[in-house]
């Protein structure tokens, strides 16, 4: 089963994402901030890496961007989608060194999100 790791500092958003993604047939893990994302991956073995990262751009302790930067530095090439609360976040804003697969804005357009996930995890 395709596994997605979702990181957001809002529990409600995490619940929403989990419900919606599980309904679409994905296995969902959650993290409350970027630190939990990097911890999870450092602890886990290589085989336990999720198939996709869904990271909120702005979180306390460690942002999604910072977490992704650390992961990329550690050689993790898992596709990542960044969710931003900024209205006009576009692919043009993507830090080029991070290999971000796409940007989504809040409120989340779930149809678009599910399309992106399906495309990025199709092997």
């Amino acid at each position: 089963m395709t596994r997605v790791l979702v990181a957001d500092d809002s529990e409600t958003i995490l619940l929403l994402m989990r419900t919606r993604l599980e309904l679409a047939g994905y296995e969902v893990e959650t993290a409350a901030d970027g630190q939990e994302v990097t911890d999870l991956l450092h602890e886990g073995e290589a085989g336990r890496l999720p198939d996709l990262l869904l990271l909120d751009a702005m979180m306390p302790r460690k942002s999604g961007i910072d977490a992704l930067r650390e992961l990329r530095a550690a050689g993790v090439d898992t596709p990542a989608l960044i969710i931003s609360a900024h209205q006009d976040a576009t692919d043009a804003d993507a830090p080029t060194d991070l290999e971000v697969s796409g940007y989504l804005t809040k409120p989340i357009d779930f149809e678009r999100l599910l399309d992106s996930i399906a495309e990025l995890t199709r092997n």
Partner: protein
Amino acid sequence: MAVIGVGRFIQQRQDFEDSIARSYQVEMAARVQVAHGTGGKATRAAVTAQANRREELRDQISSDTRDTAILVAAGLIAGLTGALLLFSGLIASMRRPLEELVEASGRLAGGDRSARVEVGGLSETATLGAAFNEMADELEQEASQRDQLDRLKDEFVLTASHELRSPLTSVQGFAELLMLDRDSLTPKQVDTVEIILDNCRHLVHLLNDLLDLARSDAGRLAVTPRPTEVAPLIDDAVRTMRAQTEGASQMLSERIEPGLPLIDVEADRIRQILVNLITNAHEYSPEGASIQVAVRVVDAEVEIAVTDDGPGIPENQLEHIFERFTRGDAGLTQRVGGTGLGLAISKSLVELHGGTIGVESTPGVGSTFSFRLPVSSRAPGAGASPAIAEAS
């Protein structure tokens, strides 16, 4: 020098008068002796000598007078020159600070808040300079306070809009979740959820508009223009609005002049303006109204006009129509779902593209909102005019 000369002249004159008087006294005494026959030959010689002496004295005084006159003239010339120098120095010492004041005032009026003058010169100009500097200080302080307030306001709108998006995501997301399972909901529940979703969309629209305006105010609303074909843009906007206008049995049509040149625009922003204008025409016009989007070239500009045959706009509302939170007739706004920001944003966006926007309306006949955008300087592509296409 003139004073010394005049002083010397008076002294000499005095001495001369005294000497002449003495000479007469001596001569008179001599003449008395001669008259009494007591004086001899020597006495008569003394009378002649005194006459000669006075002659000498007169010669001397006239030569002294000439010298003195020269001295006085030289003194006067020197004095005048000195006064002139002093005066021109005085004028210069007033003129420089005044010129500096004029120049600094010009810079201050031109928006250079750091314009100050060097305080110096005469006490009057120094006071004027100090007063100017004080005024400039106050202006600068007020301007920086106003800038700070503006920044705080922009920052607040940006942050608020950002912070509101997370809870809005939850509300909209869970309402959508409910609708995924709509078969298990009663019709009343479906209606309720649809109302929640409608209002979520309205809130998002409002947040986006507020953010655009805050950016526009902060000078941070930017567009990335690219040479763009006009017709597909119009088609796109019309397609977006079709469902809504058909829902009100309104006739939405387009009339596009063939062979339009390219325009340098950010396509999404032009679509946003068009959707704003068509939405207004749709919402302010009754059922069955007709709305037309017409595009043509006027004076090297592409003009896009949205015309409706709705109720029109009274003249007193027309002049404020592009101001934010200005909305049409209050009776209608009950059912009109706009934010009151659409036209203000459209105006900012059109101007950001170097274009102009305007409105014409006749109550009872209808309204036309039109905007003009400069034609792209790049070579026309697929949108080439027939004339050029034939020539090439």
